[in-house]
């Protein structure tokens, strides 16, 4: 199993009055080649969880298996560099971390750090800029002069240029306008389908979970309370209610119709299919 958490606990500031258990004996196996959503309220441990994937945090107890590596509290940080090449982590608001003079230099920074030649780093940077939808003609501009959405794409390109197998994104659409966040999610789908990246996305947006993700992990109070396919998850009305999950629009509308006597088949998740199913029931 390439990514797995085995009884992983993590405590911030252990042994001090501020000690705080952010993860409590988490057991979890992530399916490779899929898009997995990680959801849960603020403070439930989502960000702490994903920071274990490239060993930014090491478990206080238990172990994390990532691509044939086992990470425990005993590992020396130095040995973890090769791991970071394979797991790219994009933080919240990554655009605040751009720092180079030009877009190109910023994207090249990652691959150069992993020992790639100047020439190869440049080639990769130009390629990944295209992949994330940035016109290569702005490669020589200062990243600080661009719009927020563009900056975020450049930050993501910087991680992709390292060519990781696993891409982890912490709230990648926060603060983007509706179309910007839609095309961002489409980018992750493309990276998954076309470039075969395993993608993990921390999000609060249930529309995104329904429309773009395969599996869902729900964190609550430092524990993984459920891990299943997105399809199963949104079919379990009782669980959604218990976890206080905002039901996506299509499913909410479908439920209201069912209450009014029009029940539609299972598995409808997008607007067009919903409209067709309704029309099928109404029109002669």
């Amino acid at each position, binding site marked *: 199993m390439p990514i797995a958490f085995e009884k992983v606990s993590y405590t911030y500031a252990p042994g001090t009055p501020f000690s705080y258990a952010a993860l409590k004996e988490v057991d979890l196996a992530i399916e490779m080649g899929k898009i997995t959503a990680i959801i849960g309220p*603020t403070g439930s441990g989502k960000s702490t969880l994903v920071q274990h994937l490239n060993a930014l945090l090491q478990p206080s107890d238990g172990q994390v298996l990532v691509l044939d590596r086992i990470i425990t509290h005993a590992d020396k940080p130095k040995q973890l560099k090769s791991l970071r090449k394979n797991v790219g982590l994009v933080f919240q608001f990554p655009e605040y971390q751009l720092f180079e003079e030009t877009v190109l230099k910023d994207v090249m920074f990652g691959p150069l750090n992993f020992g790639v030649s100047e020439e190869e780093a440049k080639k990769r940077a130009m390629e990944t800029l295209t992949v994330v939808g940035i016109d290569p003609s702005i490669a020589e501009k200062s990243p600080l002069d661009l719009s927020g959405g563009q900056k975020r794409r450049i930050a993501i390109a910087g991680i992709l240029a390292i060519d990781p197998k696993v891409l982890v994104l912490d709230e990648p659409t926060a*603060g*983007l306008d509706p179309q910007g966040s839609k095309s961002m999610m489409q980018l992750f789908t493309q990276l998954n389908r076309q470039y075969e990246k395993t993608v993990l996305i921390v999000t609060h947006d249930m529309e995104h979970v329904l429309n773009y993700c395969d599996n869902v992990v729900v964190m609550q109070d430092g524990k993984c309370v459920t891990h299943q396919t997105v399809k199963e998850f949104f079919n379990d009305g009782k669980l959604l209610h218990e976890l206080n999950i905002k039901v996506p629009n299509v499913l909410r509308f479908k439920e*209201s119709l069912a209450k*009014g006597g*029009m029940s539609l088949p299972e598995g409808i998740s997008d607007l067009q299919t919903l*409209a067709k199913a309704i029309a099928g029931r109404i*029109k002669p």
Partner: protein
Amino acid sequence: MKPIEVKHLKFSYDQETDVVRDVSFSVERGSYTTIIGHNGSGKSTIAKLLIGLLEKEEGEILIDGAPLTLENLAAIRSKVGIVFQNPDNQFIGATVRDDIAFGLENHNVDPKEMDGIIERFAQEVNMTSYLNHEPTRLSGGQKQRVAIAGVLAMSPEILILDEATSMLDPEGKGDVNELVDQLHHSRNMTILSITHDIEEVRKSDHVLVMNEGQIVMDGDPDVILHRYADLVKLRLDAPFSVKLALELKKLGIVLDNPMDEEGMVDQLCRLHLKK
């Protein structure tokens, strides 16, 4: 006299490309106005011009009828409060109490009265039990509520929110929206909110739509949110029910009022029963 009136406003950051181009609009007293537009359309620049953080190149800004100039900036700022997007960028005090006190100190409020004022506004935003906490340890929604308390303590007549909920989780967003609604209703405060949240637009009295530095739509949200095709062209979104009604229309099903989701469900279920 309108609380905010803007005439032919123009601004650019680099003297070349205008970020705000010939913008005119007004805001009614006690109204809830929303401004929408894609990232980079000039929304936040307008907010910064309104409170004098940026200086306009051309045009006029009138707050309660008085033109905004360098000379009366202080007077204008006591009437207009603003809450920004990033809750982490607007804290000064070491505790929540100090943070709310900061604005009061700047306005030479008598220290004897300060504690009472702070407690009153902390109560209004439901943060009384956090007064001695460090702001860094609060959640995003709590931080924004403290920021609002700090603004309220200056007793402004107008509250500007510059994407104040866009960095918050659903719970934080709900709490802040509820607080703003409450201020709007109980204090009849004039609200100007820059937002991407279509639900917030739907419940506002008036919406301005920006694109490329200009206001391209201005009016009743019920009317504007219906114009789905136009909104998509402007890289915006429409309410779910409007989008569904449009899909149904393509399939030959025409409904009365797509802004009202419950009514839509009723109509569809009736059509279903009739068949």
